[in-house]
């Protein structure tokens, strides 16, 4: 059975402004995909630790030394809107 999901809430969490129609389509597609994905639950995994990393490595650190930063213009020129060396965005909901 397709999985029922609260697609409106999920889209809001993912910051995606979807139309009603898109919500319907994606909602039903996701339900179908999750029905397949749900099969993972059939496998008994009691006491099995999760894998977040394919290789068992630990402790990758950097030395605390500084390196050259980017020239501001090199990234501000790709920005949608800037002012006085800063990124500009519309008003923020408090």
């Amino acid at each position, binding site marked *: 059975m397709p999985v029922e999901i609260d697609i409106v809430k999920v889209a809001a969490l993912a910051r995606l402004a979807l139309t009603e129609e898109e919500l319907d389509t994606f909602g039903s597609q996701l339900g179908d995909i*999750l029905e397949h994905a749900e099969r*993972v639950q059939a496998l008994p995994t009691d006491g099995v630790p999760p894998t977040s990393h394919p290789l068992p490595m630990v402790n*990758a650190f950097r030395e605390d030394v500084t390196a050259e930063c980017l020239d501001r213009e090199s990234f501000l020129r790709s920005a949608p809107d800037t002012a006085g060396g800063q990124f500009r965005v*519309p008003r923020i909901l408090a």
Partner: protein
Amino acid sequence: MTGPDIADLADLTIAEAGTGLRSGDFTSTDLLAAVTKRASATEAHLHAYLTLDHEGSTRAAEAADASFAVGEDRGPLQGIPVALKDNMCTLGIETTASSKILDGWIPPYDATIVTRLKAAGAVITGKTNLDEFAMGSSTENSAYGPTRNPWNTDRVPGGSSGGSAAVTAVGSALGSFGSDTGGSIRQPAALTGLVGMKPTYGIVSRYGLIAFASSLDQIGPFSRTVEDSVLLLETISGFDPKDATSINAPVPNFGGSLGRGVSGMRIGVVTEFLNGDVIDSQIIAATRGMADKLQDAGAEIVEVSLPSTEYSLSAYYLIAPAECSSNLARFDGVRYGHRSNVEGTTEDMMSHSRAEGFGPEVIRRILLGTYALSAGYYDAFYGQAQRVRTLVRREFASAYEQVDALISPTTPTTAFAIGEKSDDPIAMYYSDLCTIPSNLAGDPAISVPIALDDAGLPIGFQVMAPALGEEVMYRVAAYVERLAGFTARASLATSEVVAP
């Protein structure tokens, strides 16, 4: 003309081209001219390149020629034209990941792989098409239009690295690089008659690779031969202090056993991937045929069952979307990329920019991943998928206690028709059935072309090895290549093509 036939140069292997460059038969500039000519003849049919960097590649070829002239040799890729999937950042060259949300974005930095290629004197021809953010198996999910298969332009080249596959298959680069998260190098390599390889996780730096699913993504090479694959991989691999998941150890000698044959090796055929319900019968036959030849050549072939691989696809389609939902959060219209014109608050701007900028497959996966990570569902979906991942890893590890390498088909089918699966996400996801387990395990795997099916489309054969087992993997792959004697070339590479 007394010089070499420029058109032919585009059909050389990297090893052959390297010999020619060093013996002075032709120059890097000649090689670049040949692949550029091939690109202009084929691009209208293929749409494999998103960007051709004429200026940069010309400069690099001239620099390589200058190096050769003074006897300076920075390795096997010096002067060799290679292409990059457009999800690898290139300083000053537009990088889009085939997404509208990055349309026009000029990175202010080079990915580590780009830095290494430049240091090795390689000539980067340009950036190739992909499924948007590497999500897909057909290169149809590109905001800039699909890439077609050079063997048959009504077919997909596979994906997500379809552009990189197509350029090497057709000769508009001598080799290319893709990224493989669930099969995105091996599957298109299989569908375009190439050698495509995914290294052990952590061997090649991911710094500057636009992330899809960080714990699965690896950059790897496309080539026409196994030997070329080694040359390409050697150049880009090794520890990178900018990638915390990069392995801090000397890289293995990938090509050390290339000529050794398979006599005395134990090789396992994965029984789950010879199941006629999910794998095309011609592919099963070709795979079995090759297994027999390996046995005749002195390898011991055993059947190995990996029952948890049945759940790999499901686990993958939870883990990869979960990671991507977070990795792609940075595309918000604030610092770069598309910003919506919709009036309103920053929150509105972000939501509309993302909805307008991402294509449907990307949105689908972001939604799926967001759901799988959200409160109340995490354990049943993402958490369980990670535990299944552990089981897959364990199963592979115990298999490698019995055998030196595993073999299977690379894909369930040969190249399918454009549009055939684009409305059915689940059918599309099945394309990665045989390739996903190696990503989950973090192990190296390679696809080698072994035959053509009845429709004249290539069939790929996969060789898998344990982590850091590239030498063994290449040893088997090289012998498979030899046994297969696969010399066919994509029709578009051999026919006299004219712009439509």
